[in-house]
């Protein structure tokens, strides 16, 4: 350890990792073994995890209370293969006596886990899904891991980490009407490129960060992995504390950065200058303002996923679709990210607005986002989507194309049959 790092303060990521490591003062680049507070698993449990874990020959897991298990990718099962995978998952959860088996009716892992208060400030959480970074909105250090890493946590409760360097993002100003935090994070990914945050922690500070709702923050933290980041953590504030109080969530440790923390890079964003953007296929960093696009006709619009299937997203989209019909050549698929959101959307009349606009409303699942089911794209089809990845063939045929966008841009485009700026609808 050099003198510089000894004297500097710590970022949020460094503090949380220090709290969970035997070395109580970790520095970037250092390899540590950290104690895991919670591990989230979904269908991967029946994929590679159960096979890898069985190789260890253990008859138990380290802590049956610290595993959150939910089925969300292929629910309800669209194929015999998926059904078999679900059977393997359930059998494993029973055999090892998981205390938190959420079944398949609750919704998408990241949404349900946070709604139920499993992600609390200061926690170190890992999950078998790259978008586990979402819990950074709740001041957690959380990140995605593979099946073997999950097996290691199941066996020992610990995991190795290389302590990341931290990039500081200072936000000022507020997002303008119909501009959403999706536009902000897409703009950041476009500016940094897909490898711009490789092996780094992104941290979000400033009055602009505090102006974002918890739903909006989740979208930002969710997509940091698209810039290669290990985590994307928001500074805690009153809005977060109120949110936690509203759900009777207690016993947490708000983690602030030190004033003299060391950042590898610093970026400033004025949120009032962010405009509606899309990420063109086939990369999330291929970002341009909607206003600069040529005419792009769409076949499908998808509103949902762990990135943008929350109540705020549905409300904003419904506001655009109210008393209107979508374009006759477009199919709009709406999937609330959880049952709780679905129920609230029913109560608020949002589902009625979607159905009356001729949208198809599906049950909470990851489904279309990864080409699994409920809206797979055919050859040469074009989809505007509120999801997180527009890789080749991600949502269906290899010749289909995905434009990533905010819920407002997606809803406005569904009305017009082509990609349009939501401020013009």
């Amino acid at each position, binding site marked *: 350890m050099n003198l510089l790092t000894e004297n500097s303060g710590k970022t949020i990521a460094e503090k949380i990792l220090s709290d969970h490591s035997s070395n109580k003062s970790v520095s970037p680049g250092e390899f540590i073994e950290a104690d895991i507070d919670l591990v989230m698993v979904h269908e991967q449990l029946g994929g590679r995890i159960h096979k890898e874990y069985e190789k*260890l020959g253990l008859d138990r897991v380290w802590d049956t209370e610290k595993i959150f298990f939910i089925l969300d990718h292929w629910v309800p099962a669209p194929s015999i293969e998926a059904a078999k995978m679900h059977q393997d998952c359930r059998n494993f959860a029973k055999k090892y006596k998981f205390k938190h088996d959420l079944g398949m009716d609750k919704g998408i892992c990241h949404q349900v886990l946070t709604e139920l208060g499993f992600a609390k400030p200061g926690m170190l959480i890992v999950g078998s899904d790259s978008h586990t970074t979402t819990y950074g909105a709740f001041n957690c250090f959380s990140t995605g891991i593979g099946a073997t890493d999950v097996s*290691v946590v199941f066996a020992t409760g610990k995991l190795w980490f290389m302590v990341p360097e931290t990039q500081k993002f200072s936000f000022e100003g507020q997002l303008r009407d119909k501009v959403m935090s999706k536009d902000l994070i897409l703009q950041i990914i476009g500016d940094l490129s897909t*490898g711009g945050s490789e092996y780094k922690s992104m941290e979000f500070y400033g009055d602009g960060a505090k102006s974002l709702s918890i739903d909006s923050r989740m979208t930002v933290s969710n997509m940091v992995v698209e810039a290669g980041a290990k985590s994307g953590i928001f500074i805690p504030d009153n809005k977060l504390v109120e949110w936690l109080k509203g759900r009777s969530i207690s016993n947490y440790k708000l983690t602030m950065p030190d004033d003299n923390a060391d950042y590898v890079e610093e970026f400033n964003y004025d949120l009032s200058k962010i405009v509606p953007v899309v990420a063109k296929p086939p990369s999330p960093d291929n970002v341009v303002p909607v206003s600069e696009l040529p005419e792009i006709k769409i076949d499908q619009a998808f509103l949902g996923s762990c990135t943008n299937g929350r109540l705020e997203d549905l409300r904003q989209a419904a506001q655009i679709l109210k008393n209107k019909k979508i374009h006759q050549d477009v199919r709009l698929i709406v999937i609330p990210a959880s049952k709780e959101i679905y129920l609230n959307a029913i109560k608020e009349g949002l589902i009625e607005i979607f159905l009356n606009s001729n949208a198809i409303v599906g049950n909470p699942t990851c489904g279309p986002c990864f080409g699994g089911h409920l809206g797979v794209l055919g050859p040469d089809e074009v989809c505007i989507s509120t999801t997180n990845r527009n890789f080749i063939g991600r949502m269906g045929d290899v010749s289909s194309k995905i434009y990533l966008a905010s819920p407002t841009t997606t809803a406005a485009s569904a009305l017009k049959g082509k990609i349009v700026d939501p401020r013009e609808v």
Partner: protein
Amino acid sequence: MKEIKGKVFLFGDDINTDDIVPHQYLNLRDDNEITKHTLENISPNFAESVREGDVIVAGKNFGSGSSREEAVNVLKTLGIKAVIAESFARIYFRNLINLGILAIKLKKAKEQFSEGDNIIITLDKGEIINQTKDIRIPIEKIPDFLLKILESGGILNKIKKSK
């Protein structure tokens, strides 16, 4: 680690895990069946051409995208012993190390190899010998922490040994 000797398969930047294992094969659950489809959308003959000991060389951000470990396991099943890239996506990097596949970060990697080059990687000497091009390329030392996992043949073997 013993020396690694094989042929190079060359790829570009931003090869993602959807490229390596397309989604429609994710729930097959049979390693050999999934492996048949490795990289099929961008290199249709890859799976049948690879031989034990071969090496992938790629550009920046190799393995970006999902945490699906199938995308590393298919390479292991095919006998790939090392991936040399200008940079790696972090989950993919972890998954390679955890499954015992050497991950080497190398600047301008794509420019120093051609498809089919015969190479030898020797960690002891800290170099890659490109026999076809007759050049020696120095590589950064692999941190001891990671080397121990690799030398155990993957992290689960390391845990088994310590129990």
